[in-house]
Structures are given as C-alpha cells and as structure tokens.
C-alpha cells in the first residue's frame, strides 16, 4: 500500500470528498461535456422521430431508375438531393451534401489544430486556425442556405413547405426543416462562439490569462456539431 492510500484510509476520505478534481478536468470543461450529452439526447430524439415517422409510411418498392416523386410513399433521399450550384439540370445525387460533409470535417480538423496551438501558447497559430475554422463554418452555412432555398423552390413540382411538398409525404419536408434547421442553428451559434474566441485570442486575453482552455471548450462544442452532422448525413441522406 502506498503512503497516500494509507492516509486516505485513516481519515476516511476519498478523492470524491472535495478539494481535488477526480475527473482531472476543469469545471467549465465538465459542464461543456454534460451539456453536449444533453444536446445529444435532443438530436437523438429528432433523428429517432425521423426513423419512426419513416417507418410508419409506405416505402417505395420499385426500381431506383423508375422512381418518381409521390405523396403515397417516402422518397429515396438521393433522388431528392441531387442538385449542385452552377450545375443546373444535372443529376448529381448526394454530391453537394458530400461537399458539405467534407467542409465540416475540415473545419473540425482546423479546430483541433487551434487547440493544439493553444497548448503551445502559440498565439499566431491559434489565430490562423481559428480563422480557418470560422471560414469553414460560414461556408457550410452558405451551402445550407443554398440547399434550403433549392429544396423550398423545388424542381417545378411546387417545392416544399411545412404542410406540403413535391417530394413525398408532408412529414418528409417538415423533418428536413426541423433536423437540418436545428443543426444549422447549432452551426450558427458555433460560428459566433468561434468568433468570440478568435477575438479574445487576437486581443491577447488568453495570453494574459496564461492558458487557452476556452479554445478547448468551444472546440468541444464545434466537434459535437460535426459529430451530429455525421449522423444527420447517414440517417437523412444515405439510408
């Protein structure tokens, strides 16, 4: 038995009795983790709702080539999302959403690099990578704005609203707006938080403080947004 374990035994105290950090993480970081856990429940609820509603509707049974939009059955996602900006009229299924996925993954990478630079107290590098992360986030939001406007105006069949859409049952568009909208709102608030971090880095707040832990905390949030997109991509666009 080590000396420390012995003294704990004697006083009847464990590491959970206070004065120490049993999880070896700061309060702010822990609270970010548990907030993200609760946010994961919210997103799970939305995605499970999608699964349930899709299961309660008729599925398309013919061949993919012969597929046409109908309110009778749930659409095949790759037939709905096949437009790419500047390439009007071409059928490029899931290409644009693939580009969006890569943009978000890349902005997650630049975020890790910002956190890594923060550990080294490298102010210039943190500034550089935070800026790239913000650009990535804004690009993603721009792509989503385009996708929404294309989805709403449609391909000549009347487009989509919360109550009706040309692609399939009315719930299909409603869920599209809810799920990608809720995720997009997260991206937007992530960009705002990233900008605040960038601003504080540039003005030297973290350098004076002696550490860049705020970059880490907001980094956790940003990675979570990327994580959710991975699930939205699979369950909304691929399956």
């Amino acid at each position, binding site marked *: 038995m080590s000396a420390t374990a012995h003294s704990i035994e004697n006083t009847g105290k464990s590491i959970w009795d206070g004065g120490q950090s*049993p999880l*070896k993480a700061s309060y702010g970081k822990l609270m970010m983790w548990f907030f993200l856990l609760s946010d994961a429940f919210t997103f799970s609820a939305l995605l*499970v709702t999608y699964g*349930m509603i899709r299961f*309660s*509707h008729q599925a398309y049974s013919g061949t993919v080539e012969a597929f046409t939009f109908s309110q009778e059955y749930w659409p095949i996602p790759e037939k709905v999302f096949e437009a790419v900006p500047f390439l009007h009229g071409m059928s490029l299924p899931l290409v644009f959403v693939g580009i969006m996925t890569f943009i978000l993954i890349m902005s*997650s990478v630049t975020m890790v*690099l910002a956190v890594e630079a923060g550990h080294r107290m490298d102010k210039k590098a943190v500034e550089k990578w935070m800026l790239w992360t913000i650009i990535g986030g804004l690009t993603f939001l721009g792509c989503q704005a385009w996708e929404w406007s294309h989805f709403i105006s449609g391909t000549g069949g009347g487009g989509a609203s919360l109550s009706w859409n040309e692609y399939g049952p009315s719930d299909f568009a409603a869920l599209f707006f809810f799920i990608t909208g809720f995720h997009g709102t997260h991206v937007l608030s992530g960009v705002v938080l990233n900008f605040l971090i960038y601003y504080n880095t540039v003005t*030297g707040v973290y350098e004076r403080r002696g550490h860049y832990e705020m970059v880490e905390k907001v980094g956790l949030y940003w990675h979570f947004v990327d994580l959710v997109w991975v699930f939205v991509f699979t369950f909304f666009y*691929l399956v």
Partner: protein
Amino acid sequence: MHTEETSHVQVVPADKAKIKKIWMTAGILGLITALEFLIAFTVPHEMEMTRVSIFIAMTIVKAAYIVGEFMHLKYEVKVLFWSILIPMIFVVWMLTAFMYEGGAIFDARY
C-alpha cells in the same frame, strides 16, 4: 509596445508526431465518407438491410474517431469517459422502442 507585452510568453514548437496524428484521423474520416458514397451507389437498393447496416457501422466508427481523438475523450479519466458513454444507452432504447412503434402505426394504417 505590443511585442514587449508578449515577449515573456514562451512558444513551444509543434510536436510533429501530434500534428501527423491529427491529419491521420482527418484522413480516416474522409476515407470512410468516400467509402460511404461508393457503397451508396454500388450496393443496390434491393439489399436495403446490408446497406443500412454498413452505413450505421461506418457512422459509429466515424463518431468514435471524432469523440475519441478530436474531442479527446479517449484520453480522459475513465470515470469521465463512462459518464458520457453509459447514458447513451437511453438513446439505444429510444431507437428500439420508437422504431417498433413506427412499425405498429404502419400496420394500423395499411
């Protein structure tokens, strides 16, 4: 004045191995996404169960890399690791229960 203020801060040079690992993880995430595309257009829709299982497996692998490496959870204290993971059991149950429910609504409708 600005340089004077910051001159006492010691910038540590970057660890090449660490940076390499970050880009490796990014490469894996990109590769899995590319594979998902490949499967989406090569495995026919008639094999729906196979497609869905592959997609879900790949999504979980991607999620593990993002949470484990990017969010650094793999390297946190075990208690923290499990406090985040174990509550996700509720999501698994939610998924099971509501998919079953969806099937029941389908049967009642058609």
